[in-house]
């Protein structure tokens, strides 16, 4: 069965590009654009990986991450966060909330693919 990725991002053309490259890798990609309903969507979707933008309409990615980490069902879900602000402060906030990987925009497609692959295969020694 192919792995399932949920992408929460509000920029349509970024959604299209990421969906394209991940689908081509054989991943099933589902997308969602609204911050306020992101956690609900997540509970219904049961993805193997969540790609989460920080700046979302309605609710910030940090809040979504905090909530999903507090929920036993998603506490261990690998989460890749995307942000347009690569400052160390943002990275630190994401790490405090328990992010699995962090990527600042603009990223290269190959970077995205490598990170997604390694997150889906689990941390080294745990795969």
């Amino acid at each position, binding site marked *: 069965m192919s792995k399932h990725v949920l992408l929460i991002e509000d*920029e349509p*053309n*970024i959604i*299209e*590009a*990421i969906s*394209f*490259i991940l689908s081509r890798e054989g991943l099933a990609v589902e997308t969602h654009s609204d911050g306020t309903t992101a956690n609900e969507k997540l509970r219904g979707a049961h993805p193997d990986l969540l790609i989460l933008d920080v*700046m979302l309409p309605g609710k910030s990615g940090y809040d979504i991450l905090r909530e999903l980490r507090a929920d036993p069902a998603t506490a261990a879900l690998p989460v890749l966060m995307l942000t*347009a*602000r690569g400052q160390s402060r943002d990275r630190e906030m994401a790490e405090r909330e328990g992010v699995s990987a962090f990527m600042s*925009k*603009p*990223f*290269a*497609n190959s970077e*995205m693919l490598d990170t997604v692959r390694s997150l889906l295969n689990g941390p080294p020694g745990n795969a």
Partner: protein
Amino acid sequence: MLLDLAEILKVEPSMLTEGAEAALIASLREAASTTRGSTAELDRVDEFAGRFPGWARLLAEARGRIETLERSVETLSDRLAHDPQLAEALHEMLSTVTAIRSAASILNEPEEIDPDWQRRFHRNIHEDSARLAESSRSLVSYLEAEGKAASESGTPQEEVTAIFEGEGYHFPALEAGQAPEALAAELEADLSDNARALLLRALRTYAEDAAALPLAAVLEAVAAEGADPLALVRRLGCDPARAMRRLAALPAGAPCGPVGLAVCDASGALTFRKPLPEFPVPRFGADCPLWPLFPALSRPMTVLSRRVQFAGRQGGAVRAFAVAQPASLPQANRDPIFEAHMMFTPEGSARGGEETEQVGVTCRICARSGCPARREPSLLGDVAERGP
């Protein structure tokens, strides 16, 4: 008298009281001590200033310029970190760039791509590049508009202070009842938007003060009782802060002599400054916690009166009055927002037995030893201790 003399001779008033040399040497010491790894011969600074006065002045001026520029950089990086409009614009640009980069590299791959997808990505790139052009244009115009204010080094407060200074802290038009809006419109030509707002606020306060305490009545009071804000309060029934502002707004040559003023908000940030040669109020940086201005904040509504002198100076004592009072109208169950005013006038010899508080401009150039409020060591050689 001193100010007039300084005016005629076209020099800083402090030069007449302290001598040009002392001001220059203080700047040089500061330059040496704030430069990391400086090997300047601090013990021979007098000799340097004496033998090469031109070079020494140049160095001191360059140091002042650096401080101003550092301030600009600080303002700009603060803006980068905190300005929501700028953050929004950059976010928009980075998002668009991300989409373009991603789509472009898909198209650039050697692998075959379905023609439908190919068309879609071409179209996306086209749309996004138009968006990028638009957002970069608006970013540039935003930065240009804002850049003017920042490049002047001045905070908006400084721009307003410069206007007050230029007008001698006295506005005959407002005394005669002109609307502050009209005067602001005349004066604000070169100001940044923020400074305009501050200027209007300051002129409105001035106009209200002038309406409540007409110039003739204030002049009559000071002719009889000198620059005493409490005497003004008794005679004319106003609050002490207004009395202090009014005394500091008298025309040059008023019978009570020059009156200086410093106003700070409850966080201690100066919001108005009218320095006197006896009592410099620095433009930047932290001031001396021993100024009566600051203790007043911990004794709200009490008018403090202290004799104050800058440590290490010969003479030049001032009488300072300070009070902290609410700056806002009372609201139910809300703590008032306080602000503190400190007014000061030159004073001759001490009144019977009163102590003179030794204060500084700022710790680094203060000569007071054994100071309970010292924040950082002084540069003034052996005169001062090297720490608390």
